[in-house]
């Protein structure tokens, strides 16, 4: 069984209560169409599970296959310096066909970021290193494609269509 390595920690972007019995971690690539398909499903799952679920997003850009994936990940991480990670994460997935720097700067402006700071932050070495560290953690955790999901630290191999994922999480929640 592939285990999430390292476990969820303070460097992660986390939505939902820290007391939630269920933690869903996604390794995603902003330019991956399957991840784009998963994006509204995760929103639906979060609504259904409510405070029983916390959600974590980690970067797994396949840079050779998706030339804009790494920079989009950098954009979202840079937005987190202004406490707008999830707003940027969402706007990127909602526009995943347009991920040039010009596009990313426009999204930054739209979600209310200080664009000048943002433009400086995306060049910070530590931002790129965060994305690379996420990728490496994914490899160590046994991620073999995107999106990959972990539920309470264990790799989830089942279907992640809404009905299946909600069913699985509901069943799991009842066993905690």
């Amino acid at each position: 069984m592939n285990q999430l390595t390292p476990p969820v920690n303070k460097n992660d972007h986390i939505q939902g209560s820290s007391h939630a019995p269920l933690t869903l971690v996604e390794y995603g690539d902003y330019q991956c169409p399957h991840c784009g398909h998963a994006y509204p499903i995760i929103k639906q799952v979060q609504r259904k599970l409510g405070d029983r679920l916390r959600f974590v997003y980690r970067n797994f850009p396949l840079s050779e296959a998706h030339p804009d994936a790494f920079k989009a990940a950098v954009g979202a991480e840079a937005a987190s310096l202004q406490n707008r990670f999830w707003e940027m994460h969402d706007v990127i997935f909602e526009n995943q066909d347009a991920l040039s720097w010009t596009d990313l700067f426009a999204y930054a402006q739209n979600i209310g970021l200080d664009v000048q700071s943002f433009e400086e932050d995306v060049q910070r070495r530590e931002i790129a290193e965060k994305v690379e560290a996420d990728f490496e953690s994914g490899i160590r955790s046994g991620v073999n494609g995107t999106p990959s999901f972990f539920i309470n630290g264990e790799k989830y191999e089942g279907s992640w269509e809404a009905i299946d994922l909600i069913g699985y999480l509901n069943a799991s929640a009842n066993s905690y």
Partner: protein
Amino acid sequence: MLQSGIIAPDFELNSTPDQTLKLSELKGKKVILAFYPADWSPVCGDQMTLYNETLRLFSRHNAQLLGISVDSKWCHTAFIHYHKFHFPLLADFEPKGEVARMYESYDEKEGECKRALYVLDEDGIIRWNYLSPTGVNPGANGILQALETLDHQKKKS
């Protein structure tokens, strides 16, 4: 599969249409042998795409990745170009599957390589192996752990 501790059998296969690669030329480097069933099939593409992105983690351990299937050198060339792979794919094409047979990684029924992984040390000795179900992309964590264990052991000795 061949067991850990034995010397990896040497072979020479085409790595490009006009170049061959001999395993023994890579002495001094660790080698990852990734046998896979076929170019262009969905799981293989994902597995090799993943390894392409993982090369920088492999190279930290002085390791060279080699993909091996029974596809021809021309097929490999197109596959490499399409996916922008930065590592060689070797054509175990004629006699078909000879190297895969040597490594006990050949599926006689399908006439393809199995999805088998080997990690060799700098002296060409097999140090780790893994046979994945054909339909499952095994990821790269097993390879990375094997490389780390080798480096750790070397540091201690």
